[in-house]
């Protein structure tokens, strides 16, 4: 058994070491990451603050989110209505995202409206007032955000999984908190959180598009008005999963069973194994790509589901596309697989996913696939940085992770990957015998009976002929899930996030 406990300590040490160097530009000058692109008269802003939900004090889960939402609800010069009105008038966009580790405030404006936009944007970051009249409203909206997670099957399983594998750790609660903690949040809480985290040595600034040095200077000078202070750290250890553990979330009358399988691991972008694992993951099941094993075996060969994918980092989809949002960095990551077959095929699909994971961990990547996947990753990378905003976000992620040159060297780093490196990384980081499984089911007890029974149902789409895959299907059906009754936990969706 791999020494997972040691691997869990490693990221904590890395976090401490790296955080000392983050956001420190030249002496006396704030770093502003810049991507210049003329031709289209648009300017993009991104401001990243280490103030995500992992910094929520115990009992105040959701405070980062609460504070962030309030930023745009009133500043020294502008009321909430005025902010909304002004931004709409100049058709500027403002987004405030909160993730486990960071708050990211993004803005987009036509160049001709830059001055007007900047006035509002800078006040949101530097001079929010957390108006008393907005506190109750913000709480109500936040409670609705929690409802929204319960409503969406996909979100429920994803968040349920994220919380489960990080149980007891600052990552282990919804970004928007839970009902009882949100109801306790006050204006004073938000003020304190803001002053604790919005420090000039805890903020990363970025500009992209058609702008000049004057804007850079202005931004730098204005943000320098923030205090300098002690940068808080995320404290806590992520516990490794021992064996296979299953959380069943009950929701009435589900026709599909959404599920996620995976475990925390200590693979970060700093690691020389990161790029080899990226290649391994492309082979297994990159998000919404059809080249991976999971997509092929679950969807193309058997038609069991619309998609099946795997991830070596926490993944938030960027808009309607396939790419990950680069604005949710985490220094402690996890491996996961996700699919959502018709419920009758859930057990088979779980076995199939685990078998593929086991095959990869044990046997590595076939030589012919290695070349293919490397080529895929290298050639697709330009899309990761295709727009000024994405390029900016990736460069800011470099700053955040301390992985300088990640963007510039990506293609050559992929080129250097060998089968030995991929196989070694897959063997080291994938642990199919120690996974958490979170599934959305109609009846938890019935599902447990089915999982523990000797039978594995497989229902092909109507009139599709399973003959050619029979031998393979039998092997998958024979795969041992290694689960006992004690490995299961059942919770009703309505009881989550209370």
């Amino acid at each position: 058994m791999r020494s997972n406990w040691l691997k869990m300590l490693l990221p904590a040490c890395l976090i401490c070491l790296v955080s000392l160097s983050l956001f420190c530009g030249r002496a006396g000058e704030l770093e502003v990451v810049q991507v210049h692109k003329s031709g289209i008269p648009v300017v993009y802003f991104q401001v990243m603050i280490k103030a995500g939900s992992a910094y929520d004090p115990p009992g105040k889960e959701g405070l980062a989110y609460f504070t962030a939402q309030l930023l745009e609800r009133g500043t020294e010069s502008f009321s909430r209505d005025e902010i909304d009105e002004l931004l709409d008038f100049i058709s500027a966009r403002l987004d405030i995202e909160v993730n486990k580790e960071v708050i990211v405030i993004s803005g987009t404006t036509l160049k001709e409206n830059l001055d007007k936009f900047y006035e509002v944007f800078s006040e949101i970051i530097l001079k929010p007032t957390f108006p008393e009249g907005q506190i109750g409203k913000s709480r109500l909206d936040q409670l609705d955000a929690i409802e929204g997670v319960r409503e969406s099957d996909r979100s429920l399983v994803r968040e349920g999984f994220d919380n489960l594998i990080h149980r007891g750790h600052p990552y282990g609660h919804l970004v928007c908190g839970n009902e009882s903690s949100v109801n306790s949040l006050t204006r004073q809480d938000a003020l304190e959180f803001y002053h604790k985290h919005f420090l000039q040595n805890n903020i990363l600034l970025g500009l992209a598009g058609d702008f000049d040095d004057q804007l850079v200077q202005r931004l730098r000078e204005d943000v320098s008005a923030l205090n300098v202070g002690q940068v808080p750290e995320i404290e806590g250890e992520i516990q490794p999963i021992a064996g296979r553990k299953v959380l069943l979330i009950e929701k009435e009358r589900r026709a599909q069973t959404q599920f996620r399988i995976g475990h925390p691991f200590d693979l970060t972008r700093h690691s020389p194994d990161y790029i080899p694992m990226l290649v391994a993951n492309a082979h297994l099941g990159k998000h919404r790509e059809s080249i991976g094993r999971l997509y092929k075996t679950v969807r193309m060969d058997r038609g069991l589901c619309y998609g099946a994918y795997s991830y070596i980092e926490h993944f938030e989809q960027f808009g309607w596309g396939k790419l990950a949002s680069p604005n949710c960095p985490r220094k402690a990551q996890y491996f996961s697989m996700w699919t959502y077959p018709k419920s009758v095929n859930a057990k088979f699909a779980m076995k199939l996913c685990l078998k593929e994971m086991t095959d990869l961990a044990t046997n590595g990547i076939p030589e012919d696939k290695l070349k293919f996947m490397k080529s895929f990753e290298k050639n697709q990378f330009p899309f990761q940085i295709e727009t000024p905003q994405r390029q900016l976000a990736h460069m800011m992620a470099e700053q955040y992770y301390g992985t300088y040159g990640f963007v510039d060297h990506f293609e050559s780093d992929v080129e250097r990957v060998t089968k030995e490196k991929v196989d070694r990384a897959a063997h080291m980081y994938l642990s199919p015998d120690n996974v958490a499984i979170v599934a959305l089911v109609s009846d938890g007890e019935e599902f447990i009976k089915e999982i523990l029974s000797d039978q594995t149902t497989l229902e092909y789409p109507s009139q599709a002929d399973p003959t050619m895959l029979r031998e393979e299907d039998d092997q998958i059906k024979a795969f041992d899930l290694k689960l006992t009754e004690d490995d299961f936990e059942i919770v009703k969706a309505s009881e989550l996030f209370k």
Partner: protein
Amino acid sequence: MKSRQVLVLTLCLLLLAAFPVHAASIDLEIQKTVLDNGLTILTCEDHSVRTVSYQTFMNVGSRDEVNPGKTGLAHIFEHMMFRGTEKYPDFDEALGHLGPETNAYTGTDATVYFVNVKGEYLEKVIEVEADRVRNLIFNEQTFRTELGPVKEERRMGDVEDPDGFLWCEFTQIAYLKHTYHHPVIGFEEDLEKNIQVEDGLEFKRTFYSPGYATIVVVGNFDTPQVIDWIKKYYGDWEKQPPQDIPIPLEPPQTEERLKEYVWKDNLINPKLIIGYHGPKFDIMSDDFCALNLIGRILFLKSGRLTKKLDTDLQMVDYIYGRMQSNKDPGMFTVSTNLKKGESVQEVKDIIFGEFDRLTKEKVSEEELTKARNSVKASMFYRLNRPFSVASLIGSYHVLGGDHNLLFQIEDRYDSITPEIIQQAAEKTFKPTNRTVVSLVPKG
């Protein structure tokens, strides 16, 4: 709101009203080429990027599924297009090593296939795309297997997802005759029992011909070279006579249609969709442009209904509305997710009240300028990557018949006055022209 804030806000608005968005006009050089076989090609070079977006717009969608029992065929065919040809039995193997961003989508009016790659790989993409659009293998086994993901997609979107479910029900009530009635993904019964592989083959014969196709290429490439390649790989794609398939006309709606549904659990908030029949996509139509602007006036963050229902009263979680863009007369729709415990009727009354107000009072110049700014700025924000530009060009060509309509946007929306807005509102927002569906949690 305190009086000082009212004064400041008023002054801001007056100042901003003097500064409508012009930006630079949309600056795209688009070349149109039509081959002898009827295939249309629209190209737009951009050498500031490394990539190119290659999109094939097939001028067929669920709207064209006029035969009973055969709904969902356009979408199924889209799925099948990834199942290979004799030359390239595995589409992913053929192109995957080039690192493409590739996918497709089917709508009511068109089906679009896109492959985004680094510019140097464009010829290979053209070759493979030309091959699959003509030589797709369509056999029983792959057809039956692919129906599986289609059904799971339907389950995910229209059965398990309350918003998808409600939209699916809405279109069936709002449209009685026109083929916008049925969901793009098709009815369950058709997917389970009615559609056969022969239907797919017939569909291909009918619609997958050069006259129905427009290729849009945007990014880093050389136009004469791309035209040569397209001629090389598509040139012998046989021209077919255009099909004259009459789409049933939707008769005018004469009374309000209402339906309430109950969801299978109590973990949702109440939801509401309201729709009014309106014009088809037509930038030259005052009504169409006016309704687009009304969408902004009501549903921008500071828009009348967003502000009232979301910001001020907090009766809804979100609310959004717009004039749909369709080849045939579409709908102005409003979708909203109420906060728990809020009354569907009260929210409806507020929404109806605002529509009524639009018919009785002219909108202010400030509101109109804000709405115009939003429409125009949206265009600029879409110019940030070849894929978005190609989508924009293609959709204007397919829906509007002419990609050059893009360049009319600023003038057209500038010409819409408060009077035109009011007239469009009077024509459209009548209770007898309205369909309302709601979904409430169980028990």
